[in-house]
């Protein structure tokens, strides 16, 4: 676990360093994610390896880690109230645009491989909650 956390922090620090040195317009942790992804593809560690366990442990409660940022909303309550219309419309409009565009492009272009993975026309099935849905239930936000 500590070994795994060490690897995660190392990737982040190297990521921040690269961002600093190369003046990349990308957050350091995102560069760290790319570094770790490359390492995982290369080394293919087992499920029991420290990095995988540390990562799963952190991701299980990913939501907790941005509670402090979200609480900052107390300082912006007036802004949210005054700009509720532009915020609401931009949020819903942009969400729909992204969802529709990605869905359509992949569906139309990926059609030749689609037979096995297509929704039955009877409509969405009702699935039970996933077995893994304990307190965290996967990467959550």
């Amino acid at each position, binding site marked *: 676990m500590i070994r795994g*956390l060490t690897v*995660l*922090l190392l*990737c*982040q620090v190297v990521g921040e360093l690269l961002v600093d040195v190369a003046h990349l*317009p*990308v*957050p350091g*942790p*995102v560069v*760290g*994610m*790319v*570094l770790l*992804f490359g390492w995982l*593809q290369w080394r293919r560690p087992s499920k029991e390896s420290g*990095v995988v366990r*540390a990562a799963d442990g*952190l*991701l299980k*409660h*990913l*939501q*907790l*880690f*941005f*509670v*402090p940022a*979200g*609480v*900052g*909303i107390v300082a912006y309550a007036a*802004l949210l109230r005054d*700009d509720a219309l*532009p915020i609401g419309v*931009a*949020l819903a*409009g*942009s*969400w729909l*645009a992204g*969802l529709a*565009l*990605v*869905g*359509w*492009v992949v*569906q139309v*272009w*990926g059609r030749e*491989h689609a037979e096995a*993975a297509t*929704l039955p026309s009877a409509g969405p099935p009702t*699935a039970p*909650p996933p077995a893994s849905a304990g307190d965290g*239930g*996967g*990467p*959550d*936000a």
Partner: protein
Amino acid sequence: MPDALTSPLALVLLTLLSYQLGLWLRRASRYHPAAQPVVVAIAGTALGITLLDVDYPTYADSALLISFWLGPATVALAVPLHRQTRRMRGVVAPMLVAIPLGAAVSIATAYALILLLGGSETLAVTMAPKAATTPVSIALAEQAGGLPPVTAIVTIVAGILGAVLGPTVLTLLRVRDRRARGLAMGAASHGIGTSRALLEDETEGAFSGLSMGLTALATSVLLPLVLWVLAL
């Protein structure tokens, strides 16, 4: 107010208790997609610090113990991304075009709609990264000169929109391919949408997780570029 109630220890405890309450409510609602622990946790903590008369900067300093883990957790997103790579065969090309395109359109529409409806430039930059997963959108807002707490909130709301309405909207849009549905959910609603996609179907959930990781990357790279083009 006694110091012991406003110490860093007490404020971290308040955050953890509010989060536990959120987890409990999610279980009690039998995993309803709208019952997101983070919403309850933020509301509970905000109410708590208001009652304790603690200002936000003081709270944020104390809560550094928690927010510190946002960075390593972002790095950790490489692990689920790595797990999904096996499923990519057959959709690599459409996916590698659709996701950057979707990210660019999400950034541009959010930014333009805010300005069009009379919002400030700062608010537009704040909204622009909202399709990326929350830790990344917060970091991007910080870098681009937006308001990170507001970004956190709108990102979470974009996730909840997907969790509650995503599958219905996709069906109305006649998107039937499980992989396309999953990729769309992850691209528009990151991890919160992914947990709903997992409830719908395993393939849909896996592709949503993959899409969330790739969208975070695409948004990071494209945000400065799109903002630069829009400013011309």
